[in-house]
């Protein structure tokens, strides 16, 4: 089948292709989710993975850290976790006789916040603030977080006892929310037969250095967005605002996020201009957690409805 490779393809994404292939070897049957996660990283956004335990949320986060050679920290969120446990604290050092700041796990390039909805809102907001500002302020002193800085938070579907679901305004801090879902039959067969994934991860060698990643992030931000694409995004947003399916439509910030993600996706596809298809590819993950369906349990119908939006808005 002849594939269309628009001439706009540059060489920028060349280092990405083997990386994607390696990732797909480890997490089987989840090509789209992997690509979305990488696009999220390229777009300098943060990622929320919402799914049942055991479908590979943590593996995906570790995999990203490995592949991009990022310094990895994992924080298991519990109800007694305190903000200082994440950000760090100033501790008295008897030897030097002074106070020293001991940075918390947030001072890493890739932070995995496992089961973020188990912690209290106060702790959650400490992390979310750090995500937004890319810096933390402890006792009046502002400390920048490392670059690149990427948070992957995982969350079990909200209807569990003893959790604090992220408020709607906080969900907005995540560029994308993806779901992994069960692997299909063939992929699962291979998974069960094959080698332990953790061992594979250990063997994995970084495919990229920080400089390349930062460069790719800069390039992603520079991908061209034509007026036609902006019009399409606007049409999508207008539809969510006027549709009776949604309680609230997409905000302008959501529109910006959508374009940011679409740029990264286009780069991943090897293009330096966004096509409507790129917007469509990331739309569900970007828009879903920012929409509230009219009636029903929150989070239940949104993915289906987001696809409905795509089906109903003509590409200009």
């Amino acid at each position, binding site marked *: *089948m*002849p*594939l*269309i490779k*628009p*001439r*706009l393809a540059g060489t920028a994404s060349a280092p990405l292709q083997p990386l994607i292939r390696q990732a797909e070897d480890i997490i089987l049957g989840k090509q789209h989710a992997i690509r979305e996660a990488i696009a999220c990283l390229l777009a300098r956004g943060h990622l929320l993975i919402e799914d049942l335990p055991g479908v590979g949320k943590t593996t995906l986060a570790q995999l990203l850290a490995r592949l991009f050679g990022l310094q990895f920290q994992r924080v298991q969120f519990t109800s007694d976790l305190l903000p200082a446990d994440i950000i760090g604290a100033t501790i008295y050092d008897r030897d030097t006789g002074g106070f020293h700041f001991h940075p918390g796990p947030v001072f890493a390039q890739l932070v995995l916040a496992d089961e973020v909805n188990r912690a209290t809102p106060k702790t959650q907001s400490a992390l979310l603030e750090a995500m937004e500002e890319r810096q933390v302020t402890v006792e009046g002193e502002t400390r920048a977080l490392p670059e690149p800085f990427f948070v992957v938070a995982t969350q079990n579907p909200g209807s569990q006892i003893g959790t604090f679901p992220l408020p709607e305004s906080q969900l907005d801090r995540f560029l994308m929310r993806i779901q992994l879902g069960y692997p299909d039959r063939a992929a699962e067969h291979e998974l069960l037969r094959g080698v332990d994934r953790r061992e594979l991860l250990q063997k994995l060698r970084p495919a990229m250095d920080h400089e390349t990643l930062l460069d790719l992030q800069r390039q992603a931000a520079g991908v*061209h967005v*034509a007026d*036609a*694409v902006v019009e399409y995004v606007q049409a999508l947003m207008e539809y969510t*605002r*006027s549709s*009776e399916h949604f309680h609230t439509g997409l905000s302008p910030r959501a529109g910006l996020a959508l374009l940011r993600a679409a740029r990264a996706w286009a780069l991943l596809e090897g293009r*330096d*201009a*966004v*096509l*409507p*298809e790129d917007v*469509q590819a990331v739309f569900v993950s970007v828009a879903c957690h920012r929409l509230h369906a009219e*009636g029903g349990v929150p989070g239940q119908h949104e993915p289906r409805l987001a696809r409905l939006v*795509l*089906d*109903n*808005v*003509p*590409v200009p």
Partner: protein
Amino acid sequence: MSTGPIRQLLPHRVLFALMLSLAAVTLPHALHLPPWLTAILVVTAAWRYLAGSRGWRLPNRWLLLFLTLLGAAGVVLHHGTFIGRDAGVAMLCLMLGLKLLEMRTRRDTVVVIYLGYFLVVTQFLYSQNLLMAGWLLLTVWALTALLITVNRSTTPTGWFPHAGQAAALMTQALPLMLVLFVLFPRIPGPLWGMPEDEARGVTGLSDSMTMGNISELSQSDAVAFRVEFASEPPPPAQRYWRGPVLRQYDGRTWRQGEPDHTAPPSAERLGGDMDYSITLEPHNRTWIFALDLPVQISIPVSVNTGYALERSNAVRERIRYNVRSVLDYRLEPELGDRDPAIYLQVPEGSHPRTRALISGWQSEAADQDALITRALAHFREQPFEYTLRPPLLRGDTVDEFLFESRRGFCEHFAGSFAVMMRLAGIPARVVTGYQGGEINPVGDYMIVRQSDAHAWVELWREGNGWQRVDPTAWVSPERIDLGLGSAVPARDNPPTLSRRTPSLSRTLALQWDALNAYWDRWVLAYGPGMQQQLMERLGLGDWRRMITVLALLMLLTLGALALIILRRRPQRPEDPVQRAWIRFCRRMAAIGLPRRPEEGPRDYARRLIRERPDLAADVEALSRLYLHLRYSGRGSPNQVRALAAHVARFRPGRKAAGQASPET
């Protein structure tokens, strides 16, 4: 289906305003709805309101179905049918009540509001008066404001949001309303022509007279007709409005008698011309009332033997006509070949005491004139009383009245006087109609009410023809000069408006009547006849022509609107790249591969190549160029031209050579 507590669809205030508006719409209907249905409406509205404000549960689908069937059965049992005005409106009200119980989404609310509008329309099947029209206008305003509120996604503030916008919308609808009012074809007679509905609640003179039936009518303040005089109205003593003339007498009841098919009686004009127009309220009979004695009239009528005017069909809607009457006339001076016997007929053996009285007088009196004067003097000399509440007469009514009770209303005096005259050998008949009328200073017209209903006597005199004699005037001159309210004792409790004592409520009532008269004249009187006149004046008399013109007008209006809309959104995009692409898509659609609206251009190209590998080269080149030009922001004019040229020479065949088309 959710049966649980409903999510708050509308803010409390809007819900409350909706319930209030619907109550206002159904309130006038409550007058004729079965009481149990009104109760259902109250209960369902309360239920829905509490569901909205307190989170009560709404009934589930099966309960609703059950309630619907039960209610429909109730309506059928109550009215005996589904069809007809009353049963139809009852069903509509029932549906509104039940729809409230399944009002869960915005769409349901909109349906409820539409039902409200429909109920507003049905109200006009019952009443078209000014007060009701004003009330319904208010409810339409409220409903429109609610419709806007419900359709807005923003949370409304205040009790009555968007009222101003609703008013603006209604003002904008005004020209259309006027056009429809003038041009929409009028149908003669009530639209809802169910026989059971027609005669209901209409008062008026009947075709016969027994002692007691006019005094019953006189209890009503209702307007019989209104009169506008071209000049000074006649004095009260001349205000005799002629109605049915009764000549057949069976000893108790006066009737018209069989019509004889002779030429109408001759009338000689002696002077005192009077021009005026009458707006007659529907009375469900064929009578057309006019001042004694009409000589010209603007509508087709027939004149019967008694010189009463009749229309061919009953007066079921308000009509207006112009009349010329002469106050001084000579009616039928020669009876010709008409048999005078019927005017002398009194059943054998009836009224023995009256016969004896008349025989006594006959021996005393010199001639018939003296006898008439004697009889009238009898009414004045004996203690006769004019009253609205005459005692019930059971035996020989005339004898009982003349010799025992002596208390009666106009029909007692007219009836017994006519009997006396007949027994004395003078041809006599009873004329019923109205006597009097009150000038409304506000609109400068005369109101004649049902309470002005009257009966008098006409005597035929050789050479002078039929002459009016009103025995009531001899008993109670006030009745003629001042009207009913002044003539009967206050304990009779005459209708309020017939008392001519000035008071604030009376003044207000007169002003209100004047307003109603304008409304009747300028709005309601515009019936089929007036429409026909107007259309003829506009050259649209023929209804086919009218429909053609209407259709043309509609076409022109819609066409103009369409042009405006199309101009605002040009179909051809300005961008040459997009134009070429749309052309390409059209070519592909022509061979059965249209682009789905939501499909991106690259996905579309991929699909095309998958389905038609034979076109791959062209499609790939075209789509690549298009994607580059449209999305990369780096296109050159040369590339644009190349794209347009490529599309222009691209002619895909319907089927690839040697390959079945993919969709079969």
